[in-house]
Each structure stands twice: as C-alpha cells, then as structure tokens.
C-alpha cells in the first residue's frame, strides 16, 4: 500500500507531502496510527502534546532535532563523530514507549529477555 512500488516514487512523495520520519516526528505519528489506529489529526495532536511542541513543529526538522535529543528518542546520525552519546535504536525505542505511553513489541520482548532490564523498566510487562 502507501507510496512505494516504483523506483524513486517514494522520494517525490516525501518531498511533496511527507513528514520524513526521524528527521522530524514522522515515525512517532506513524506509531500512533499503527498501534492505536489514530487518524492523522488525532495522532499529531497526541504526539505534539507529549513532546510539548506545536503540531506544526512536528514537521520541522530543525525544531525536532533538538526535541528528539532532549527526549532521547533517536536522531539520524550520518558521521561517526555525531553519534557519541546518541541513544541506539533499542534505547530510543524504550524512551519512545515511555514518552508515548505506547507498547512497542520489540521493547517488551527485550525487557522479557533481559530480566534485570525488564524489572527496572516500569513499563515492562506481559506481551499480549
């Protein structure tokens, strides 16, 4: 479904109308649609409220890079010397689950497999 299929098509949609994932808050809004089935307006409002920014800020890459760093929810890093101290994917997803009050499957399974982590993480629980 969506915007895929042919080579390059997706890039044009991203430029014309896309939130653009971790450059902004696109992945967070997408998670609310995927897991909660929220429609766009509701999902954007929910994420903006959790991050303490305006809905317009969600699509602003400059604003969101600072916000993502502040909350430890992952940033795109291209060069090695940009990566120091940035959370890894799994670390970021622990923080996203906490921030959005959202179950993330792999996070819950990680917490199960590493009991000391699961016990310390208050959202750790039974995977449904």
């Amino acid at each position, binding site marked *: *479904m*969506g*915007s*895929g*299929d*042919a*080579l*390059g*098509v*997706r*890039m*044009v*949609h*991203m*430029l*014309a*109308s*896309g*939130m*653009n*994932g*971790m*450059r*902004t808050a*696109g*992945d967070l*809004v*997408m*998670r609310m*649609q*995927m*897991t*909660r*089935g*929220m*429609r*766009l307006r509701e*999902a954007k409002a929910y994420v903006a409220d959790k991050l303490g920014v305006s*809905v*317009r800020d969600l*699509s602003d890459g400059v604003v969101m890079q600072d916000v993502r760093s502040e909350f430890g*929810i*992952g940033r*795109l890093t*291209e060069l090695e010397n940009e990566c120091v101290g940035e959370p890894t*994917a*799994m670390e*970021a*997803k622990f923080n*996203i689950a906490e921030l959005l009050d959202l*179950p*993330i*499957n*792999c996070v819950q*399974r990680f917490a199960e497999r590493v009991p000391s982590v699961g016990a310390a993480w208050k959202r750790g629980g039974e995977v*449904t």
Partner: protein
Amino acid sequence: MGTKLMTRMGDGTSVEMTRDELRTDIEEGVAAAVKRAKLPPLDDDEVAHLLEIFASQERMTGVKVGDEVVLSCDGSTSLRASRLDCLTDAEDVGNDLCELQQQDYSYKAVKTVVPSEQRLMQEAQYRLTIPVQYGAQADLGRYSKPDGPCPNWSELLPLGRIDEARAAQEEAASESEEDMVRIGEAMWEAGADGMDFDTSGAAGDADFLAVLKAVRRLREACPDLSIELGMASEFVLGMHGELEWEGVRLAGVWPVEQLRLAQRAGATIFGPAVNMNTGHSVAWNVARALTIIKPCMDVAEIPVHPNVGMGVCGMPMHPFPPIDAVARVSRAFIEILRVDGL
C-alpha cells in the same frame, strides 16, 4: 484558443492542454466515477482546487508547511543491497516506517522460510528506530495448480465447471488464511511492529475473504499488532461470486465498503486502490480516484492511506513516474480528501 499547459497522460507521457481542456478532463473524470460507482461528485470548490494543482506549471509542488502526512509503504528492500541495509537506508532518508519483505512478496512463498525471516525481523528491530513491519500479498492464485495444491479455477471456469471452481477457491482461501495467520504470529514473536496485507483481493472475492479472516484472527491473537490492509483495485472481482463475510457479499464491493469491512476485521490502516486508465490524463484519473475514495473519509475510524505507488489512484503507469505528476497526485489527495497518509 488558450495557452497550452504541459500535463501528463496516464502512461506518463507529456501532453499539452488548455486550461479549459484540463477542466473538462477533470469534470469528465468525476463524472466517470459517479456513473461507475454510483457516488456523489466532487463539489465545485474541489474541482477548482484540482484544476489549480494540475494547471500549475512548476516542476515540483507540495502541500503547505504543517500539512504533511505520514507515508506507509509496501516493501523497503531491493536487489542491490542486503535487506537489512535497505531498511537502514529507508530510515536514513526519512521514511516514517519501513517494511521487511521477501522477494516473491507472497505469503505462500514466505511460509517456507519463516525462521530466517523472523531472524531478519529481530535483527532489524535492533538496528532501527522507526517502525518495521512485515509485508506480502495473499496472492491466492499461487495456491492453484500447477503452483499450488488446489484445482485451478481459471481453467475450470471457462469449462463451465462453476461449482468445482468455487470449491477450489474456497480451499485456496482456507490455505491462504492459515499461512497469513501463521506468518503474522511468527513475525509478532520476532518483534514486528506490524503486518501489511498488500494488494488484497487481487484474485477476487476469495482472496479478500482470506485476508479479512486472517486479520480478524491476528487482531484477536495480537491486540497491539499494527495491521495494514491494502487493496488491489477499486472493486473486488467476483471470481467466486457468492462469498460473504459477516453477512456482506464481497463481490463488487467498492472502497467505502471495503473500509467498513477492514475496520470490522480489526485493521489499523486501510489502503484503497483505484484503477488507472492510461488513455486519459493524470488529471482525469486523479479526479476519478478522489471521487471514488472520498466517501471513505466520512466513515473512517482508522487512518486511510490511498495507494499512490505506480499505476494506481492516478499515478502514471510507468516504472519511473514523472516527478511533476507524482507531486500533483500527492498534493491532490492530501489537500482535497485530507487523507491520513499515503
């Protein structure tokens, strides 16, 4: 005679039209949808808005700042790099989610390699921050002989052996449902964020029935699993003709009814598809697609992401759809229908 404007045909070739000719094309696209699907037309403001989008001569166009949407997808991997590298690239360039896929893009093919697909999914989840879903098609035809175990209904139907053809489709749908449920549960165990049932209904009503049943079972088994249900075409072909799901006859259902069924089954994202007519302009095709999908927006309880990959919903039928056409399709769906994503 008015100034000629460059626009595109449904096969992607460029063509020149006057503004009046473009307006006529849009109005005729709307009328074609009204006649075919028995739906209300776009209103005058929507037609005027669409005309402005397509009359624009800029190469690139887009939505207003702040009106951006999320983009789902059907497959994020290719032949040129490892699948994990492709998923990482998808995250780096700014995708909102990415999709692990097996090259056949058929659940029947995937079922033979489930453990390795699970391991890839688990690895992807450790590498990526954006959601990672698994996707393929029900692809019911693969369950018929000589590729599959069931009698071939495409051979039986021309012989007039209708009952046997229907029984074969029911058998195939049952096999397909089991495969999709088994793979969905396996991917959930591997940490997947979601499942994508793409091109649903491609082999007709039995194909769609298998997907609806699988979605319902997965929703009950995995309450937090994201389930995208994307369609193959604007209405479900009645290859069987008599199949029903929860009292609704599946043959001939249009997007708004498809959406209601997807919602009831437990899908979290719905992707309607509208067929292309390459003999008409992109503007004509987009006008027709918007008219057909518009009723979905009033009844949707879940996000609606129209399929705007190559060759559906107004997107030119060409491996490399022109940038100017793609951008106009993108903008039109968001500004006129207020879709939840693409």
